């Protein structure tokens, strides 16, 4: 019996164990080692100690540019995305007719996102014939303003990406909708008795009750937007003056275009450190201002 049990156990666990060792734990350790080497695939790796990390921090201005671009993008895209996702969810929660149809419409963009939509957005932002400028042009003409160059303008390229990111608020919206459905009705009734209007109820009931969701949405959004790659690769690459050289795009170039495997690995570990820092801050901040109701904590 016991022997049979053990055999079953290994059969059940082996696919996972192989995957875990070969494609998770093993690569993680291998990557850490690679980050201390100089390696270009064609000659064997050479141990260089902290040289890659040192180069990143002291000798590579582009990495700071890439970090800045990524931070800039995340700093605006994530809070704005969370805000609009919450607003749409609140609107949809008002006993709207055909709620599921509205929900489908707002979620559809998230479903189709990827390379194909990157191509579409590149065209929408085309300065000459793009949809964005075609619609804006009559208004801009009133004030004698020139056509915005969007992805071709170093100052507008990142804002264009931020605008585009708002198109993908559907996932957040669904999480907020679920959160709103958990807000007890009696809280609103109590607030109404106390004479609270729309704003009062929003400020004193909805927002405090949604803090766990807001928090979740902000941190997941931050972690996600730090890894923006596909859109950048498809739409503008590095961009004019490296204005859209995002962190993972730069990492990809270093590792797979110039085959600077060691340097790319070091970059990946710095990215991991950033994500880890966000997670740690998340947990320490959560205690302070997130309101958890008993069973949700």
């Amino acid at each position, binding site marked *: 019996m016991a022997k049979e049990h053990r055999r*079953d*156990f290994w*059969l*059940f*666990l082996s*696919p*996972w164990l*192989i*995957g*875990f060792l070969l*494609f*998770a*734990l093993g*690569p*993680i350790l*291998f*990557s850490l080692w*690679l980050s201390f080497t100089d390696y270009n695939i064609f000659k064997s790796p050479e141990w260089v100690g902290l040289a890659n990390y040192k180069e990143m921090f002291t000798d590579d201005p582009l990495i700071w540019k890439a970090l800045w671009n990524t931070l800039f993008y995340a700093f605006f895209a994530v809070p704005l995305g969370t805000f609009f996702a919450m607003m*749409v969810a609140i*609107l949809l929660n*008002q006993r*709207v007719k055909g709620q599921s149809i*509205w929900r*489908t*419409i707002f*979620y*559809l*963009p*998230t*479903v*189709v*996102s*990827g*390379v*194909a*939509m990157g*191509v*579409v957005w590149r*065209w929408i932002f085309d300065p000459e*014939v793009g*949809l964005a400028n075609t619609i804006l042009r009559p208004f801009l003409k009133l004030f004698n303003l020139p056509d915005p160059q969007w992805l071709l303008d170093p100052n507008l390229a990142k804002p264009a990406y931020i605008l585009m990111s708002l*198109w*993908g608020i*559907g*996932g*957040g919206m*669904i999480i907020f909708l679920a959160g709103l459905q958990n807000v007890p009705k009696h809280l609103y009734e109590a607030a109404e008795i106390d004479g609270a209007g729309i704003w009062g109820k929003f400020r004193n009931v909805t927002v405090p009750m949604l803090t766990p969701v807001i928090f*979740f949405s902000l941190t997941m959004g931050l972690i996600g937007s730090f890894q923006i*790659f*596909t859109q950048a690769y*498809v739409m503008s690459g590095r961009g004019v003056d490296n204005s859209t050289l995002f962190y993972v795009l730069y990492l990809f170039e270093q*590792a*797979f275009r110039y085959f600077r495997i060691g340097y*790319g*690995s070091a970059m*990946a570990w710095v990215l*991991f450190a950033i*994500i*880890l820092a966000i*997670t740690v801050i998340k947990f320490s901040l959560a205690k302070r201002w997130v309101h958890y109701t008993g069973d949700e904590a």
Partner: protein
Amino acid sequence: MNTKKKIILYLLLTAGAALMLSPLLWMVSTSLKDPANVMKMPPEWIPDPVRIENYSEACQAIPMGRFYLNSLFIAITVTVCQVMTSAMSAYAFARMKFPLRDKMFFGYLATLMIPATITMIPVFILLQQLGWIDSYKALIIPGIFSAYGTFMLRQFFMTIPVDLENAAKIDGCGHFRIFFNIVLPLSKPALATLTVFTFMGNWRSFIWPLIVTQSIEKKTLPVGLTAFQGQYSGDWHLLMAASVVAIVPVVIVFIFNQKHFVKGIKLSGFGGT
């Protein structure tokens, strides 16, 4: 709610919905336009004349069929295998007793937190040493073993009452029969949700196929599309037709599985991206 508030509410929702849908409508509309009308000002939303040939031209210009088959083959294979490996390990973690079980599970959870950006370089080197670069093996095998759904399925399996299995055990059923005859049938909703999400994720997958493919015959749809984009930049009617073709499968999967999406997002919180 009074009428004035209702009007404002529906106005806001309509404006939002219009913003959400316009890029998609614009894409479909352009994909059906005559090249001469693509850049017409003011833009026309309903193409006149409708030009279906854009689609056949796009499919001739690039090996769309090949990309499509590659994407479908890879996404389906990886999805089926991944759901299976996730279910097996989830069963082991939820129902089998073995030393270090919870420590191993914790280790698994910790690796989920590590961004794929870290593992992609070493896995690439591993496959390169094995000579697998630019092969289906490179596109499929790392995906098969990533038991991403283990956590979700384990949580679900824990909610299944043990009594059923105990009864089966008394009747002499081993783990295999319990797994296939009791646990899996009872977990259909969770398995369906995981399947839908895994398929969508694989269909969209971009950076990995971009790294491990070189020849045009091995490229998946998203990677092939980027190559096409450079070659035909400016031929927006063809690019839009190709884009429409690329998103049709996800739209179909989405429309027929909406409830799984809502459930999956609530469970995983990842919003499907």
